[in-house]
């Protein structure tokens, strides 16, 4: 610990703390612009200058580490004058005329800093140099005229996302923010995660959708989670008059630490589908708007006649974007009360079933957590594509590459991480079992095995040949994972789970399993992970919500004579239905979700649905009442009944 004095306050902080963080911890306010708590200090804006006793000049507090007996003053005339001067220079550089800007009036950190220093005018006028505006991106406008060169966006793009799209061209006052090698942002390697917009202190990076739709003080915000995939990122949903304005990553969320992907940040704003506003019932061959009472009656009549134990010819499918409460009620109604022959998720356990079975066969969870990726020195991605469908998990991997993380990809198909990998193994026509055997032989040959195996080193050559790869391919790959101190294997539920687990044990690697939908794991825990097989079903209930039904599934279900679909949007699934219930979207409902690492989180409603639109949960209760059934189970117990691939937090 180091002891120092800031503005007469004696404080103790750990060694290596910056003066700025020390001051903040002591409640001393130092204005900043380029500083961001989630980014490494940069020392670019000089607004945080402080007086340090013994130092020749004012020092930037954000980059200066504390030292013992340091005496810091943050509010001397010299410091206050310097702050005004720093702001004067920033304002003089570009177009900072507030009335034209969407963040003016509370959301601009530059303007707020000027107010804080009581600046009534600019002592120096701007130099009137126009800079380029890049409006080529679908979500983001890059307005260099308002840029203060703080490089928060550049750091966020590199440090948080690992994408390194943004950078600066030219020097000094001519510096301009560019994408890649100076190409339009919309044609660049940008992955539309929105981190740059979220960290921009001024109006230089404009979110097209939310710009000019109200300042943060005028917006309502709901702290909730994204249900785009099984990562379960913490988000803040900003609304105004019950309309969606913006979604930000929640900096305080332990899972994602503020990071989001395109799906979490921008996709909810681009809703283009037709919303279903009222229940519909098929009459004389075509779907007609109906009252809830009519639709519930039609649905219950259709189901009542089939109700029978132990097996009735009903198929019931629910989306994994629904909360556990709803999935649990769904299971109760259809499996326990109506005796449906098939109750599963629309995902059919595709992303979980092998992992769940593997856990059950050994009787204990075997997967690690996302934090294992943060602590890892070598990651192997096996037949999963996190950068494509679990982007934030992909960012976690990519952003560690510059600090030395080794990355391996084993995937027969093209993988978004291929280019970033130290080694991407592309086996030919063979089973993955052979690939793992060859890898095991390579590990044995290298003498790096941490466990026992029957496979011998001299099998490597023949095994490698069998998979269409060279022994060197395997030795290189095996070395990177087996020589690592904290190796992690990221995978998606696979039929090769046994080989994978064996190999992971051999090299001492932790397994992190991606799970598909937001509640795929919860659905699996409730045994809703069976695959669909047509079985002369007479009726089907498809609880889709705002999810989509695959074309394959639509084809499978088409021939069932009586179909009830609850969905938010019109689709080929609702078009074939006999009864349609309108459903809330994820923003219009709440409930619990279990993410890929077994964290149970609650999502909260941020938008109120139209009166005629109900949650699937409420619809199930209404339907049960109609059928004379009482739903009263407790999901919190059911969730833990089955052994899970990853320990589920209680």
């Amino acid at each position, binding site marked *: 610990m180091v002891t120092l004095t800031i503005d007469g306050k004696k404080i103790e902080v750990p060694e290596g703390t910056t003066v700025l963080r020390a001051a903040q911890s002591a409640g001393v306010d130092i204005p900043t612009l380029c500083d961001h708590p989630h980014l490494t200090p940069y020392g670019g804006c000089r607004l945080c200058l402080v007086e340090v006793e013994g130092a020749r000049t004012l020092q930037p507090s954000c980059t200066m580490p504390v030292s013992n007996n340091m005496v810091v003053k943050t509010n001397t005339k010299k410091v206050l004058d310097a702050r005004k001067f720093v702001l004067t220079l920033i304002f003089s550089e570009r177009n900072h005329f507030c009335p034209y800007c969407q963040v003016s009036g509370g959301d601009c950190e530059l303007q707020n800093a000027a107010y804080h220093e009581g600046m009534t005018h600019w002592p120096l*006028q701007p130099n009137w*140099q*126009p800079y380029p505006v890049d409006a080529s991106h679908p979500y983001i406008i890059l307005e260099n005229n308002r840029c203060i060169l703080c490089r928060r966006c550049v750091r966020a793009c590199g440090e948080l996302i690992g994408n390194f799209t943004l950078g600066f061209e030219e020097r000094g006052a001519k510096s301009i923010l560019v994408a890649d090698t100076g190409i339009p942002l919309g044609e660049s390697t940008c992955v539309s995660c929105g981190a740059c917009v979220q960290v921009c202190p001024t109006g230089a990076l404009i979110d097209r959708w939310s710009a000019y739709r109200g300042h943060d003080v005028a917006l309502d915000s709901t702290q909730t989670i994204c249900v785009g995939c099984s990562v379960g990122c913490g988000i803040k949903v900003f609304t105004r008059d019950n309309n969606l304005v913006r979604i930000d990553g929640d900096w305080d969320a332990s899972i994602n630490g503020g990071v989001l992907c395109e799906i979490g940040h921008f996709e909810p704003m681009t809703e283009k589908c037709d919303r279903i506003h009222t229940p519909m019932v098929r009459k004389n061959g075509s779907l007609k708007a109906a009252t809830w009472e009519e639709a519930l009656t039609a649905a219950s009549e259709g189901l009542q006649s089939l109700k029978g134990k132990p097996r009735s010819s009903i198929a019931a499918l629910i989306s994994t974007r629904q909360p556990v409460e709803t999935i649990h009620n769904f299971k109760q109604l259809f499996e326990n009360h109506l005796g449906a022959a098939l109750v599963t998720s629309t995902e059919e356990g595709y992303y979980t079933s092998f992992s769940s079975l593997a856990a059950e066969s050994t009787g204990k969870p075997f997967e690690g957590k996302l934090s294992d990726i943060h602590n890892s020195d070598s990651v192997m991605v096996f037949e999963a594509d996190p950068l494509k469908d679990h982007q934030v998990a992909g960012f976690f991997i990519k952003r560690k590459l510059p600090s030395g993380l080794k990355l391996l990809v084993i995937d027969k198909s093209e993988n978004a991480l291929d280019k970033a990998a130290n080694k991407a193994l592309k086996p030919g026509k063979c089973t993955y079992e052979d690939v793992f055997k060859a890898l095991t032989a390579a590990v044995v040959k290298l003498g790096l095995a941490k466990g026992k195996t029957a496979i011998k080193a001299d099998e490597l050559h023949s095994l490698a040949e069998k998979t269409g790869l060279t022994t060197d391919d395997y030795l290189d790959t095996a070395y990177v994972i087996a020589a690592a101190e904290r190796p992690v294997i990221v995978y998606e539920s696979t039929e090769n789970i046994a080989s994978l687990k064996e190999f992971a044990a051999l090299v001492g690697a932790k397994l992190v399993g991606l799970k598909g939908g937001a509640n795929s794991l919860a659905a699996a825990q409730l045994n809703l992970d069976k695959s669909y097989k047509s079985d002369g079903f007479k009726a089907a209930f498809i609880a889709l919500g705002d999810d989509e039904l695959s074309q394959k599934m639509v084809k499978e279900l088409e021939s069932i004579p009586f179909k009830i679909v609850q969905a938010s949007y019109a689709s080929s699934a609702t078009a074939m239905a006999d009864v349609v219930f309108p459903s809330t979207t994820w923003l219009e409902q709440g409930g619990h979700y279990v993410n890929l690492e077994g964290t149970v989180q609650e999502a909260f409603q941020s938008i109120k649905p139209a009166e005629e639109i109900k949650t699937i949960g409420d619809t199930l209760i209404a339907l049960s009442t109609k059928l004379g059934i009482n739903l009263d189970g407790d999901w919190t117990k059911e969730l833990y009944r089955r052994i899970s691939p990853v320990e589920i937090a209680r």
Partner: protein
Amino acid sequence: MAKPKVSTDWMAGCAGCHMSLLDMDERIAKIAELVDLRSTPITDLKVPDESGVDVGVLEGGINNTSNEEVAHRMRSRCKILVALGDCAVFGGVPAMRNFFTIEESLRRAYIESESTDASGKIPSDPELCKPTRVRALHEVVPVDVFVPGCPPSADTIFYVLSELAQGRIPDVKDDKLSWY
């Protein structure tokens, strides 16, 4: 003590700051009690007394030689000069044209505009003032009090005028300080 004399005028602005002044409702009567309101663009007397006034208030930036004259005349006839609103303080909306040359701006306005036909031409009568780069008031004459805002709120204007009327220099800060 005689009531302090106040004159106002506008230059390259939109008159919005004067509208905001009027927006102070019945408090304008209080101002009238406290000060001797001399010339303003919205009253009969248009030019500040040659004998001088105590407080001069200017709205708008300076975008031509005529504005320059107005600024210099006000400065020479008042003791305390107030820059009222973003245009007077920073240059404001008219200053957007500083990112272009004057020739480009004139061509856009008089020749290329959607409402001009082929015969459009840039006025060049020697009687007319000459357009210049848009400047904030303090780039042309020294300013004593800056009141930013687009427009400054009626509350802020009332505070500024009542402080000046009572012989104090207003300190525009906190909730009275806003640039938009």
